[in-house]
């Protein structure tokens, strides 16, 4: 599959991490595409939850927002927002939180709040939304984002959502019982935390990607696992299902007034 785009490879590699038995809290954007691709391919029984209160949703097109009507139409049940956060998330019912990030450091700490100083920001971003508690209440956290030096940084400007803090046992030290970030899928590679330091380390390179490509688009000195693998190339089925999903989504969102 030489014509696979990097963002398609990212979505497909991310989707593979999900299983039918997972209960997954879905972030909007890249995570939403990966989660729905998983549901439409190898994980048909996965429970997808959006923070608008839709539990067990199965949309035919990707939602533009976390509260599109189709999420509710296809959900097993739709609960209120306080119930969502209190019973289902805080109650420990969610196995995976799938998040994106504007800025991320090597320990998986995420910033979606500000670029620059909080009280005098250069760019005011949307903020945390559900993420600060998703990051600590879900069993584990998967992250997906495109690589760039602006995105993968030595130090995030603001810790919106706690990952592994300064690394090592930082989560345990704060009394957090969940695993935190265990996987990051970018457009170039699959990353996993080092078992000891918790630093995100490259586990596999996507087909055709070099170590140099990864380093050039990352703001910290990249480490690679000794047994560096190559990500399995997308199958014809994965590509077809993803492209069909994107095409349906494009039509649904652009021709609404026709």
């Amino acid at each position, binding site marked *: 599959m030489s014509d696979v785009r990097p963002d398609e490879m990212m979505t497909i590699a991310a989707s593979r991490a999900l299983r039918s038995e997972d209960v997954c809290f879905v972030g909007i954007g890249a995570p939403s595409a990966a989660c729905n691709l998983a549901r439409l391919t190898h994980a048909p029984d996965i429970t997808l939850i959006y923070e608008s209160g839709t539990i067990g949703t199965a949309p035919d097109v990707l939602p533009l927002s976390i509260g599109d009507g189709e999420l509710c139409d296809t959900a097993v049940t739709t609960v209120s*927002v306080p119930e969502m*956060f209190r019973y289902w998330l*805080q109650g420990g019912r969610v196995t995976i939180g799938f998040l994106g990030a504007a800025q991320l450091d090597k320990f998986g700490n995420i910033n979606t709040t500000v670029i620059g100083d909080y009280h005098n920001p250069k760019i005011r971003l949307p903020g945390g939304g559900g993420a*600060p508690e998703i*990051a600590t209440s879900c069993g584990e956290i998967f992250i997906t984002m495109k690589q760039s030096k602006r995105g993968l940084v030595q130090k995030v400007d603001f810790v919106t959502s706690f990952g592994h803090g300064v690394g090592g046992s930082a989560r345990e030290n704060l009394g957090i019982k969940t695993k935190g970030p265990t996987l990051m899928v970018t457009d170039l590679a699959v990353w996993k935390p080092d078992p000891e330091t918790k630093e995100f380390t490259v586990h596999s390179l996507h087909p055709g990607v070099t170590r140099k490509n990864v380093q050039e688009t990352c703001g910290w000195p990249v480490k690679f696992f000794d047994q560096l693998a190559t990500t399995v190339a997308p199958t014809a089925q994965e590509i077809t299902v993803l492209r069909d999903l994107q095409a349906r989504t494009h039509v649904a969102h652009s021709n*609404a007034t026709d």
Partner: protein
Amino acid sequence: MAKFQPLCDAVAENLHDGDFAAFEGFTHLIPHAAAHEAIRQGRRELTLVRMTPDIVYDQMIGMGMVKKLVFSYIGNPGVGLLRRVRDAIENGWPNNLEIEEHSHAAMANAYEAGAAGLPMAVFHGYVGAELAEVNPNIKSVTCPFTGEKLAAVRSVRPDVSFIHAQKANKKGDVLIEGIIGIQKEAVLAAERAVVTVEEIVDNFDDVHSNACVLPSWAVTAISEVPGGAHPSYTHGYYDRDNASYVAWDVIAADRDRFKAWMQDNVLDASPDNFAERVKNFRSAT
């Protein structure tokens, strides 16, 4: 008992300068018509609260009505940032905007505590999150039974909450369906509650016994405004106008373009214009 009245009267009687006000909706059922009426009436010095301030808060902030914003996510859902909010926070245009920022979990708990008549909400939250360091209203309490440290925030108790709903019956009971968000809590937490509805029906005899219904005596005023959530949507009535959310990013990017749009579409418009705006989005029935 809820009073049926035109939206202009409901807003004039229930929203005052300096109020602590919520215009709630979670992507779905956002009360755009009520907010536009508030803009036309020129209310000032408002403290606005909402979990997900989106383009209608961008509009109110850009029009200089707001001195403080309490929120947990400020974005144009699925599109990006809010240009007018950014201009206010980053450049103080048209006025400085004080912000109090929380997470969704905190805000949801705070509204629920407000509805429950509690002074504060307690939950597992903000662990390791830097918001707790920049927002002095994020505190903690120790559980008297287990010794656990828990996050604590003040409850949200607005002077007035505005929501949009599918329908009211002739008695003034209100039915909310689909993604119900935080609206029930926003109404019950507030001193006064104004509801715009798509239609007024004779009765709710065919409504499921567990449906989300706000009894007439829990609501202050009801105004019938078909299409009143546009460009948001009303489940069962019309779909979300996603193209308008995308278009807003361009409109709001420039101060003069923004002001011209507000003149044409809000200041020179009326609640009656909303029905026309949703006619191409009507759900097939």
